[in-house]
């Protein structure tokens, strides 16, 4: 069990949403009867804006929604998809739940780890790749399934993974 999940890192600088993000937040707020209910959607805007959610970004979200920072902190550390520290440009999420496990997902994680020279929840030195295991992502019929950022790649095997990693590495 990784304890880094329960700590929100600091970026060392204040965060202000750019105007287009603020416009999205204003629109989100019209959809909910309470400001607190907008917390998850606003945190998504924060993550899409900065790629991860720093302590300062969380403070800004708390200020906008009128919530205690402790509440925002509690929510951030409950859900697994909020990045509480910077991640690589390509977040490799390999499913290791039962159907993918039966299809050899563990070998895929190991292969990926060896090829990139990083362990789970680590990022390559060039900042391109972060490797994580995820729980079932509903790709069981095309197991083993994985996602890179918001896209599915399935079914996966070592050859396809090598091809994909090569392609992503060449992207600037």
């Amino acid at each position, binding site marked *: 069990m990784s304890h880094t999940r329960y700590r929100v890192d600091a970026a060392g600088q204040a965060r202000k949403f750019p105007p287009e993000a603020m416009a999205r937040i204003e629109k989100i707020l019209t959809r909910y009867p309470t400001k607190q209910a907008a917390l998850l959607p606003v945190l998504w805007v924060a993550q899409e804006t900065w790629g991860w959610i720093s302590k300062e970004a969380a403070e800004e979200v708390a200020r906008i929604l009128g919530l205690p920072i402790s509440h925002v902190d509690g929510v951030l550390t409950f859900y697994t998809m909020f990045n509480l520290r910077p991640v690589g440009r390509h977040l490799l999420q390999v499913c290791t739940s039962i*159907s993918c496990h039966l299809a050899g997902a563990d070998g895929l994680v190991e292969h990926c780890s060896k090829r990139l020279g990083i362990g789970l929840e680590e990022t390559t030195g060039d900042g391109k790749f972060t490797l994580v295991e995820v*729980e079932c992502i*509903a790709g069981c019929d095309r197991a083993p399934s994985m996602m890179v950022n918001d896209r599915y790649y399935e079914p996966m095997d070592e050859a396809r993974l090598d091809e994909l990693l090569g392609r992503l590495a060449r992207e600037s």
Partner: protein
Amino acid sequence: MEPVLTRRVGKPDSRSIDTYLADGGYAAVRKVLTGGWTPAQVTEEVKKSGLRGRGGAGFPTGLKWTFIPKDTKGKPVYLLCNADESEPGTFKDRLLMEQDPHQLIEAMVVSSYAIQCRSAFIYIRGEFYLGARVLDEAVAEAYAKGYLGENILGSGYSLDITVHRGAGAYICGEETGLIESLEGKRGQPRIKPPFPAVSGVFASPTIVNNVETLCCVTHIINNGAEWFAKIGRNEKNTGPKLYCISGHVNRPGVYEAAMGLQLKDLIFGDAYARGMKGGRKVKAVIPGGASANMLTAAEIEDCPLDFDGVAAKGSMLGSAAIIVMNEDTCIVDAAQNLSKFFSHESCGQCTPCREGTPWLYKVLTRIEEGQGRMEDIDLLARICNQMANGMTICVFSDAAIAAPLSSVTKFRPEYEHHVTHGRCLAGGRSALVTA
């Protein structure tokens, strides 16, 4: 059976409202809102159809709707679509949302009308970026064509739908966990009562229904409750059903059939999964997602896949996620993998679950890695018995013990072999065998 819920799946432009309208879409909304139906009539039709919840619990949908108090004391009523599909082995709602979003939106308009809800939410798991984007676009189309928003089709009825993304937490599929999450909190289930129908999201009467459940409503309105009730094995198990089959079969996938399809037909039938990969034998089947008890190869004989058919075998239909394991599978390894999932996903509120799930994982890991003791096998069963049957706020804990307890009971020799030989009985993929 002609496909009902998956009729448009795989067709070109299946996501667009024009395709949907050309295929007779939004007829149910028109029928109900401009045909003089009362909300009570819609509920009655759904009740008569025998529709039971497709999310896992199998609760009668129409009956659930009647739990909304007659007098809501001025509070709004909410409909929440549970699109948090996270049960390992389940991938049907993803398909319905990515391929045919208007089928769901139409069903939500009709269902919202039945319970007099003016603001509905689709709570979709965070990983479904594509599904959320498809739904967002479809909701915008429905607003533009007047099937959502103010005064739908001039009926005086108005409805807003908001797509709300989760952020990675299995427990948010539990209805009160989902409600907490939608309110902007940690998704920790609530103590019941009060039940959501009385006091749910924003302290208001709330109905939570699964994606597939809601999708059925459109067809019940279009074709009638009797038509729906005739599909299926008997009057308690009605309608079309989506089955998700994965694991060691030739053709994994989502298959639609009448409720009560025989498990062996699903695994071996030409129209379905077409048998076991490499002609291997079946060792075990999980019939209803990670939360369901394993069945042995003998138990899959004469097992109709419906709520009562699988319950009669001592397991459950759950989300109809059928996971098939062949004879080479190490059962201890499978149980270890499943218990890792539950250990990771426990929300941590209740001690038996928060402490029990990692304990089970630890003991299973010890046995799997050849470090187990004979008394560990009984220890597993003992831990399980301390976690279930009302020891906790929600049924997550009951779900977490399904794989360890059923596998210890049904495949005990495999556990004993692991302990005495330090390795796997099944020549399969135990850590030690493959090392």
